[in-house]
Structures are given as C-alpha cells and as structure tokens.
C-alpha cells in the first residue's frame, strides 16, 4: 500500500490542474541559450502554448526564476535548450537536474557535438556519446544539403511516435545506448549514417581506430539513437535530443522533397507529448483484494483460501484532460510474493468492466507476510507498480477438520471408557453399603 500511495499521491495532486494538457501540470521552464533566438523556434513554442502550457523563459546563467523554491518544484517541466552553454547557474548543474527528475519533473534536453556539462550528464542516463565534435553524418540519400543535415525516417508502429510521419530533418550528435532498460529510442539514425568529424571524412579513420581499440564497434548504423526518451523509476520522463535544430522553424519548414513537408513539427509534438506526460500515461487507481464471495477486503488470509485480486487502471486522456478507464493491457501479471513469488499469474481485464483487472487464485499452503505485486513495465508506458502487504496465517486452532470418520474407534474408546467409569462408580457406590455391612459383620464376628 505504501508504494501505491507514493505512486498515486503526486499524480492525484497534480491532476487537479484540470485545464492542463499534461497529466502533471502545465508550467514549463525553458532554459534557452541566448545564442538560440526565441524567434527561430516560434512554431515549436507556439504549439506548446496552444496546447495550454505556460512557458517561462530564462537564460541558463540567470538565477531567477528559481526552479525549486523552498524545496517545492515551481515548474512541472523543464526544457533545456542550451546545447553549447559551458557554465550553468547553480540550480541547473547535472546533479540538480537529476534531482528535478526525482521530484517528478520532466526534462527535455538538447545535446550538441560540443562538450558541455550536459554531455557528462548524459552518461548518467546510460547514453554514450561520441567524442566531442563528431556529429552524425550521412551521405545518403543524395541531396543538396550538407552531410550533417540528414533526413531521418521516424519509426513505424511505435507507441510514442505517430505512424506515417514524414521524414524529419536532423543535425546533431547521435547517442549509443547502454543496457539500461529505461531507455526508449524515439528516433534512430539511418543505417548509412555515422558519427564523424564534420569537416572532412578523413577524420573517420581515427574514429574507426578508437572504436576498435575499445571494442565497441563503429559509431554508425541504425542502432544509434538520435532522440532518446528515458523514464525514471518514479515515472518522470527525460528526453535527450541530439540536436536542438530539429525544433527550429527552419527545419520544420524545410521540405523533404518537392511538396512534402518535413515531419519535424509532428515529431516535435509527439516527443513533447510523451515527455510532458500527455501520452502513454497510465495509473493504477486502486487495488483491492478479498476472499471469493466476500466484498470486504481481508486483513489477513488463511492458507489455501481463494482470494480475488482486483486492480483498476486508467489512462490519461489529453483530449479531455482527465483519466479514462483503460482495459487494453493484456499482458499484465500479478505476483504473490514472500521473498520469492509463490504465485505468478496473469491479471487479465474483466470484460464489461472498463478499467478493471481481476484474478482469483488459491493462497499457497505457506504462512507468512505476502505481497500482492503488480509490476508492469513496458517501454514508453508509465510503469505500473503496486504492492500491498497481507499476512497469510495458518488456520485457527478450531479451523482444522474435526471429528473425522477414521477416528471413530477412538471416539468410541474414549466414550466407552467414560461410560464404563460411570458404571463402575455406580456399582462401587451401590456395593459400598453391602461391603460396609459385610465389613461390620466381619468385625462383629
């Protein structure tokens, strides 16, 4: 229950901003480097404001407005568009950015081929960046733009990115992904692309050499990610963008081919929707457990009881800005755990009951403190975790079967002994008088 509470409480508290399009709030702080003109990003910021976000702009070196005041987060989301800034104000160091995530603020961070504090922060997210000064380069397809400005096809059938987006223009630094399961690549590099010194292709040799030395392979190919989402254990989201220009008016308006607009604008919309917790946001409204055929929740269960576990799950709907019951999860599992899962079963949706998932199972023949664990982690979706503790007790002393048929000879034995005892006592007491008389008679003799 504790975990459930900690999970639900901030969500519930923040959803009271009913107007917001995001499930966690509508205030956004944009740390915009002065070198990037705000006007150049007017479409991107305009789209956000149209959705209902309140944007506050601040230079990375300014100290006001504070992100965190009196230990209370002042914004729900932070956009860090400062790819080339070397020094930041005290409250946007890599450490404090991580602490923002643990306060459930969402981050959108832009990288650049230059070495900045953000580069070292990226490695904390298991992102491995190529050496400084090596942006992504691709010579295919043939086009009239520089090799560093690449049209990239957004992924198909992705939970986060809409289908059938037009290719997006990208220029910036790719990221190789570590083994962290919390990473979600949102945009992968084209297969022909590689990271290299942008001036000429000759520098690539050094890269190949270095790659071979460290045994990591070349910084090339579609395994590189260009835009990477990251969802922390506490469900805060951080998105790393390889190049901030993606969101610029210039790239948005640049045509991919004759008459085909680039997909940058839609892509940016999807990325911010995910990052700011509009899309793919789920929550467990409540969980219940009770004995079969009873409605009150059990405080304890006895071994071998039949127990029903129910979870109610809803999904955030940005259209109405509220939660809707959600029944489309079909691979959720419930574990009944004491040290190890004693029972692991699927937790399927109940038909006709939107948002309700239920399963009935038999409590194992083992007493102890068990936990109902729901741990549903899918890439791109909010993690659903819920733990409720319940003691499983052995039967009460009168809870065992009694008066078994196999034991009737023993019952008969015990009862006959008692009966015989009573009979004997009766005989004895009846015989007592006679005996006494006899004794007296004997004495008289």
């Amino acid at each position: 229950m504790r975990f459930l509470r900690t999970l639900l409480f901030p969500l519930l508290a923040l959803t009271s901003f009913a107007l917001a399009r995001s499930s966690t709030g509508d205030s956004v702080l944009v740390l915009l480097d002065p070198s990037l003109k705000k006007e150049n990003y007017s479409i991107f910021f305009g789209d956000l404001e149209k959705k209902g976000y309140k944007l506050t702009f601040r230079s990375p070196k300014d100290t006001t407005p504070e992100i965190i005041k009196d230990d209370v987060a002042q914004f729900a989301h932070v956009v860090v568009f400062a790819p080339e800034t070397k020094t930041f104000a005290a409250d946007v160091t890599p450490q404090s950015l991580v602490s923002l995530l643990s306060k459930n603020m969402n981050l959108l961070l832009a990288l650049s081929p230059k070495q900045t504090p953000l580069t070292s922060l990226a490695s904390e997210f298991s992102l491995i960046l190529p050496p400084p000064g090596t942006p992504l380069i691709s010579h295919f397809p043939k086009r009239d733009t520089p090799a560093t400005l690449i049209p990239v096809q957004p992924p198909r059938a992705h939970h986060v990115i809409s289908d059938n987006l037009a290719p997006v223009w990208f220029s910036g630094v790719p990221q190789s992904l570590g083994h962290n399961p919390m990473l979600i690549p949102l945009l992968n590099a084209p297969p022909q692309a590689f990271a290299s010194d942008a001036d000429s292709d000759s520098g690539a040799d050094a890269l190949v050499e270095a790659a071979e030395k460290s045994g990591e392979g070349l910084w090339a190919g579609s395994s590189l990610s260009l835009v990477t989402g990251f969802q922390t254990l506490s469900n805060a989201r951080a998105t790393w963008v390889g190049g901030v220009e993606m969101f610029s008016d210039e790239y948005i308006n640049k045509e991919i081919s004759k008459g085909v607009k680039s997909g940058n604008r839609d892509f940016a919309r999807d990325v911010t929707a995910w990052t700011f917790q509009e899309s793919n946001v789920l929550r467990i409204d409540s969980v219940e457990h009770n004995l079969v055929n009873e409605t009150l929740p059990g405080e304890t269960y006895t071994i071998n009881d039949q127990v029903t576990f129910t979870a109610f799950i809803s999904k955030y709907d940005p259209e109405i800005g509220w939660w809707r019951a959600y029944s489309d999860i079909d691979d959720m599992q419930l574990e009944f755990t004491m040290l190890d899962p004693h029972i692991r079963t699927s937790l399927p949706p109940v038909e006709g009951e939107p948002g309700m998932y239920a399963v009935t199972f038999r409590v194992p023949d083992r007493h102890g403190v068990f936990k109902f664990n729901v741990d549903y982690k899918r890439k791109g979706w909010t993690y659903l975790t819920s733990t409720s503790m319940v003691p499983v007790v052995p039967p009460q002393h009168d809870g065992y079967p009694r008066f078994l048929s196999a034991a009737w000879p023993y019952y008969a034995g015990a009862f006959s002994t008692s009966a015989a005892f009573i009979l004997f006592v009766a005989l004895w007491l009846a015989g007592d008088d006679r005996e006494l008389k006899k004794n007296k008679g004997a004495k008289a003799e």
Partner: protein
Amino acid sequence: MPLAYSLPSNLSPATVTNTSSLLRIISLALISGAAIASRLFAVINFESIIHEFDPWFNYRATRVLAEKGFYAFWNWFDHTAWYPLGRVVGGTIYPGLMATSGVIYNVLHALNLPVDIRNICVLLAPGFSALTAWSTYMFTKEMKDESAGLLAAAFIGIAPGYISRSVAGSYDNEAIAIFLLMFTFYSWIKALKTGSAFFGTLTALFYFYMVAAWGGYAFITNMIPLHALTLILMGRFSSRLYVAYSSWYAIGTLASMQVPFVGFQPVRTSEHMAALGVFGLLQIVAFAELVRAHVSSKQFQSILFGSVIGIGLLGALAFGGLTYKGWIAPWTGRFYSLWDTGYAKKYIPIIASVSEHQPTAWPSFFMDLQFLIFLFPAGVVLCFRELRDEHVFVIIYAVVASYFAGVMVRLMLTLTPVVCVAAAVAFSSLLDTYIDPVEPEASDAAASPAEGTSAAGAAAAASDAGSSKKAKKAAAPDPGVASGILAAVAPSGSGPKSRGIFGLDTRGLVVFNALGMLLFFVLHCTYVTSSAYSSPSVVLASTNPDGSQHIIDDFREAYYWLRQNTPEDAVVMSWWDYGYQIAGMADRPTLVDNNTWNNTHIATVGKAMSSSEEVAYPILRKHDVDYVLVIFGGLIGYSGDDINKFLWMVRIAQGVWPEEIQEPNYFTPKGEYRIDDAAPATMKNSLMYKMSYYRFAELFGGNQAVDRVRGQQVPKTGPTLDYLDEAFTSENWIVRIYQVKKEDPLGRDLKAANAFANGKKRKKSKPLSRRRAVA
C-alpha cells in the same frame, strides 16, 4: 537427660505447638517479604521497566493476551516478527507465564483494581519468588522437619542464584517455573510418601502448568522417572510408588500434550522416552508383584523369568525399531550439547553464541550460592544417613543438577533449589545439635534464627562494620566446623537423642559462628543482588566523576526514535539479540529475534552484516529492509556491542554459505581480530564495520580516534557508505540506525549514483573513453 540450659517448664504442650506454628507463619511471612523486597532493587535503582531481551517478548505477548483475550492470543500470528516469514506465536511459546499474568490482570480488574499490565509483569517474578520460598519450605519439611524447611525457604528467598532470574522486571518463564518445579517435586514426594492418587493428580496438574510455562519441564520429565527407576533398582518398589508414578504419568503426559508447542513430543521424542519406559516397567513389576501374591515363589520365579525377559526384549526392540523408522525423533542438538560441551560450538553456532549457554565459571558458584555451596555436600551426606525414598530423590537431584549447572550457566537456576534444601538440612541439623537439649523445642528454636535471617535482610545495611568483620572471621573456618559437625553427628544415628555436647561455651561458640555465617550470607546476597543482578540492561548505569549515578538510556532513545519517526511497517534489521526489544519498544517489524527458530534467516542477516555493501544491498532489498540497527560501544566502552558479536554473525553465516563467508578472512594474517589500520580488507568492507565506524573518526576532530572497547586506534579516514544513509545515532553512539536507500531512479547502481552526486567525474567505466577527437 541433663539440660545445658534451663527451659521454662511451666508451658503446656499445646502452648508450645501453637506458639511454634504461629512463629512459623510469621517467619514464612517475613521470608516472603524479604524475598520480594530484595528483588525490588531494580525498580528502586532504575524504574519499573521490563529487563533484558526475552522478557520484552513475553511482555508484548501478555499485552496481546490482556487486550484481545485468550483465543486471539492462542491463534496469534505475529507477522511483524521474522519478517516476512512471520511467527505462529500460539504454537511456538510456552503460554504459562502470559496466561498467569493474564489471569492476575483480569482478576484485579474484576475487583476494580485498574493495575497496569506492565506492573503486573514487572512484579510477577518477585511475587512468585515468595511462593517458591513457601513450596521449598513444604518440600524441605518432607525431607527433615519444619525448621529445616524454614531455613530452606529463607535461603531460596535470597540466594543470588535464583534472584538473578527473578528480579522485578525479569519477566521470563523462569520467574514462575522454579515455583512450579519445587511444587511439582513437593507433591511428587508427598504422593510417593502417602501413596495417594490425589497427590499424584496434583503432581500431574502442576507438571502440566510447568510444561505450559517453561521448556525446562524436561528436567521434571526425566527426574521423576529416574527417581522411580532408582527406587525399583534399590528394591524399594511399593504400591505407593506405583500409585504415585502411574497417576502422575498417565494424567501428566496427556495434559502436557495439550500445550501446542509440546504437541506429540511426549510420545515422539527420545527425551520423553525414559518416562514412558519407567511407566511400562512399573506396570510389569506391579503385575509381577500381584502374581507373586497369589502363587508360590518357585512357580512365580519361572513365570517371572520368562515374562520379564520377553517383555524387556520386546520393549527394547520396539524402541529401536521406532527410532529407526523415524517415529521417535532422536535427541535434539540442544540435548547433545548438555553432554558434550563442545558440540554446540561445532554444529550449532546459534546455541553456542548465547552467553548463558556457556559452561559455568567456578567463581560464579560462590557468587550465586555463597556458603550454601559448601554446606550442600554436607546436606547430601546427611540425606544418605537416613536414605528414605525422598532422600534418594534429593541425592539424585543434587547429582544431576550439579552436573548440568557445570555445563551451562543458565542451569545454575535448577541447582539453586536443591542446594538450598540440602544446605538447610545440614544447617538445621547443626543447630538442632547445638541448640536444643530437648527435642520438642527443636522447631521453635530453629524457627527463630530463620526469622532472624529474614529480619536481617532488612537490617543488613544497619549492621556495623565491626560485626561483619567478626562474621568474616567466623566464616573462615566454616568447612572445618561443618565436617566436625558431621563427625559429631554421624555416629549418633536416629536412636535416642544423646548428642554428646556439654557446656554452654562450646554451644555458644558454634551457634555464634553459625549465626555469623547466616548474617554474612545475607550481606553477600544483598550486595550481589543490588550490584550485579538488578541491572535492566535496557538502561545502563555509570558513575559520574563526583560519584553520582549517570543513566545511559541510549537504547530507549533509539527505539523511541524508530517509533516516532518511521512508518509503521518499516522493517528493521538488526542482529537477533535486539529483535524482541525492537518489537516491544519500537513496535516495528524485525527480521530476526531472540526466538532463534530459523537458522537460515539468522544466517541471512549474518551474511548481510558481514558482506560488503554491494552484496548486502540485494539481500536488504529482497527482505524489504528499511532500517538497519547496530549497537556500537566504541565511544563509551560498552563491551556488549555488535563488533564483539560480529564473529558469531560470520560463523553463523559461514555455516550456510561456506563459499561466500569465511571466518579467517576477518582476521589479520597473524590471526588477530583488529579494527584499526591493520584490519583485513574483508573486515573493513563489511557492512557491520562500516556502520559501526561510519564518521566515528570525525568525532575526534582530527585527533586519533580510539575505540574504547577494543582499545585500538580507528583509521582517520573512516569508511564510506553508498547504499545506506545514517538516520540516527544515539547520544552515546550505542545505537546507530541507518536507512537503506531506494534504488536509483535512473537505474544506476548506488555507488555510481553517489559518486555522481558528490560531483566526482565518472571513471572509465564507460565503454568509450573521453578522448579528444583527432583533428
């Protein structure tokens, strides 16, 4: 017969009897008062508080019983103990103690006396010690006479060997068990003497109470059969023995199986088989006697011979077969450790790690029993002189209990009653001999010194130094005197009381000597009780430089911190010694506690404590541990801390994971146990070491930090913790509590996360090094 001194001759026998019984009652009342009073040092010096470790659990269980009633208690499943396994309390305790307090509580409340359950628990042990004194009186009366009984009652009332387990606040099973033990023995002797089934039934009922109250009931289970067997072998079989033993065994065994914790053990385990065997033997012997009564001796012998051999063989075969088939459990490890003192250390480190399971040191015999210990053999010898059935019992009891007391400190408790009884027999024989020229006055005259003893308990402080010095001198030649008495008494036999002692000077000297011994005994008992046995161990006392008492209350400070500042379901891990206290005072779930039933679980805690942080962390998370509590005495020199117990943790963990934990790794190459710079890496990386010395050196502000318990210098750069946060450290650093960190939200391991948070550059853990691009 000439009298050494004149006696008032104008007293009617009735007056003498009445006066002596009045004096007896008064003496017993005074003895009870002294017994209770001398146990109240703990309350006066400290406060009305439950002591030590086990009593905390008993207290907690009693509270459940008082609040929720008996049925809820019977079915109580404590899910906060042994998290997450839980403990079926109803089936794993001896409920006698709690039931007793519960009954007292309910009776008092029915009488509209709203007494706090805690006070009942605190004062239960002193109350029962008065009953013990009374039952010892009854028991000894059966051995010799009332005067010896009064002496025995006075001895047991203030003997430190018994006080050590029954001071106010020491709310443990032993508190009532010794009374039950003595009363069971008394009714057994009574049943044997009279051959009455009534006393047999009474023995069985008290035996049942005893079974419900203390695991030491096995002592009775084996003592009585041993006594019966000895009597049979001595050719003293009688129908009285048959009646007493049969009625005790038949009812007592059935009754003992009603206690859930005992269950079917009386018919399943080897410890109980002796009683069953003797029961069977008695039936056979009785039957044989019956047959003998009806047929001539020659025929009888032929019948007897055949049947005895046949049945004997049959019984032995059955026992062997049943043991082989697993129907009868072989002896348990705890039992073996009674015979082989090294057994536990080798095979059951948990048992060996308990200090009260260590063999007894010689000085503690004198400490606990003082002059009784050398009167004890004299009393046993006196028993040999008469050697009635009940004396055989005392002799067996004395031999068996002496052995066990030598094996285990804890069993000193069972020795104390028989020492008191035997010493009282010897002492009253001495007084009988020297005081009374005339027999009828014996009880009267012996009663008064006993009374003097108890009165002296109160007046002990008042007696001036001079007299105690004299007493010391008087006490010195005691053994000589005692043997002299023996020699004097021995030839006199039980014939006419012609004890050849004349002259008041001899009498006066000996009696004065004896009284001096008694006085000194009282002083010793009072001193030992107040100084050694009255510390609650939850609260420690030290002395300020000016001589005033300084209370060190770190334990309660820390436990209440837990209670106030942590969520109710926060799991606390500590070494098992503190489990009951955490449950009782902090009311938080614990991983392991003093009910050491699950070796693996304890070993898990041991492993977590003795491994490095990286290894321990998954264990902590798996067990949902939120806080880790360690006891550290290095700052003020509290020697019972966890670093000193640490090797036991290592050993117990090694028993389960011999590949991962190895004891030699915790010693320096020279085989020393060190915590300073020379400590081995395994030691320094262990969670226990880190938690104990975390930030310890900082406390000394740049000076050399010294651990006062070990007397070693602590390294100036102390250990660092990545997976735990220091949450609380008590005033004198005795209790340190650490909070277990949650997993890193970014999925890093906490060490890396910590390094990052401290602004350290990431080391080359990344696949690609941070190099400059080649231009």
